[in-house]
């Protein structure tokens, strides 16, 4: 194993857009910290550029985005492309929360965000345990 593979997994976390609801992401950050991840919390009202800048600066493995405003479908597009442009070719990106206003079925929501290049999409009230297990697996696969 190289040093890089042994190094602590680093994740950038934050709430995208105008939203100031942070309880969900704070619980996840807490759980990540307890599980040995290095967490870079950006708080709320975070822009795409701020996520990318923080990911570059900290050499992050993943960006975890929370959104509760229901406006995520206009806030997330273009993020994957901008990450690639910035040289973050392999970065894992997750999105979770109340993503879309309205009654759209979850499968539709998930498909829509996956088409934007988001690796995994989580509905509200997902256990941090599930997201962390996915994260371990996805980061290991990318680092390999």
């Amino acid at each position, binding site marked *: 194993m190289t040093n890089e593979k042994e190094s602590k997994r680093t994740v950038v976390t934050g709430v995208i857009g105008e939203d*100031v609801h942070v309880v969900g992401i704070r619980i996840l950050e807490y759980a990540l910290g307890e599980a040995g991840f290095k967490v870079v919390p950006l708080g709320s009202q975070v822009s795409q550029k701020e996520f990318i800048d923080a990911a570059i600066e900290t050499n992050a493995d993943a960006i975890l985005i929370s959104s509760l405003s229901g406006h995520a479908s206009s806030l997330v597009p273009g993020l994957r492309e901008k990450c690639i442009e910035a040289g973050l070719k392999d970065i894992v990106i997750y999105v979770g929360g109340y993503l879309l206003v309205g009654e759209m079925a979850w499968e539709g929501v998930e498909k829509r965000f996956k088409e934007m290049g988001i690796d995994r999409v989580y509905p509200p009230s997902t256990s941090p345990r599930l997201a962390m297990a996915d994260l371990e697996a996805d980061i290991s696969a990318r680092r390999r």
Partner: protein
Amino acid sequence: MKNKKLTEDEFFKERKEVLAQWPTGKDVDLDEAIAYHKSLPPSKVYVEKLRYAKEHGKIYAITGMGKATIEEQIELLTFVEKEGLADLLGTSPDSFSRQLSFDRAEKGIEESKKAGRSMLNGLPLVNHGVAGFRRVVEAIHSPISMRYGAADPRLIDEIGYAGGHTSGATDALMDFWHHHARVSLESALSTHRYVQRLIGYYGEHGVPLCASCQGLYGAGISPSLQMAAILVQVLMMAEQGVRHARLHFAAHGNLAQDVATAHVLRSLKQHYLKKFGYDDIEEFLSVSFSLVQYPLEVGSAFAVVFMNTLMAKLCGAQANDIRTVAEAKGIPTKEDTAYSFRTAKAMENFLETQKIEVDKKALDTEVAMAELEVRSIVDRVLELGDGDVVDGTIKAVKSGVLDNPFATNPASPCKVMGIKDSQGALRYFNHGNLPFPKEVIDFHKGKIAEREKLKGKKLDYETLVSDLLAVSKGVLVE
């Protein structure tokens, strides 16, 4: 930055810049506004009404209300006053105004007029100006408070008070932690110091305005942290000349702990004001049942209003800070608001003449522990600032001596985390950098261990989530 009263020169110099932010600022004339306030009957003065409540054991429900136009605002407030039997009313400015985007608020007013209904989530006070809001004051009978948070509340408050509000908030820590992700604490403290001085100025000229402060959203955290965040700001308010305050705290549902919070807040407010030689501040208390999500199911939502009123009664609070029973569904209608007020009023009537108390032994334990915790935090803040509470607060927030589990602002360490014990009282699951003596840490550990024993498993973040959502599901602790 130090805790020092702004001189008249400093205040009026800053005031020029504040009023220049939007054209309606030029219509604010302090002398004229003071005369206007003096012409208001006592029944429209917040402090007078709360004082009456304190002397007569009354509890008044309060909440925020806001529509885009003055006409709609009058319709809403009149309805809540008449059908909801409200004693106190509130104005919530819209979120564009809170971000100082007065041009976007202006567009919202135009769109609302076209649509024939409010297209904003609150009343754009600045756009309507002093004369606009006075139409509301003249149309209703009760005192009105401004209810909102903003990184820079100066212009909204200038116009709001001159327009006839007799109460508002001044809460730099709350606004720094929860309402804006990018504002620095220094900047929030500075804009709020201005507002405190403005309230002080009115007071010095014979107009008693009531300033509310809650320090932080209390959800999910043991009460001592909220008390400390309130108390450091009480010292700042006192320095700028604030004389009447509504101290607001979150109650979590373990009634012994909730009543203890009221006791400790009252006694330590006096202790710290005296320590610095300030005259006492006339304090009123308000309480809200802390919850992250309002119950979707309407039966539980009514129970929350009942519980909130019971808490206010036991705590000796004058104000019962409720949200409407339709909170979880979206922006409430005027009927939702009125019925919620009516519910609180009926509950208050049932309890009014009765003496009820929580268990004395449990209360004593909670008081002793909370007092020790709050003193540890506030004394350390003062030590960090070499006796200066503003300097100390800035250092304390950076280092997590004053912390918040759910701050939206990344400048906060967010190292603390709360969890419920088996009786539903909030304990420190992680006390982060709070400067607690071993006795306090052991007490909290012991309470958490009791719940672990009952549940037969270690408490972890899954428990944190379930605790945060318990009240929304109609239970205190699962």
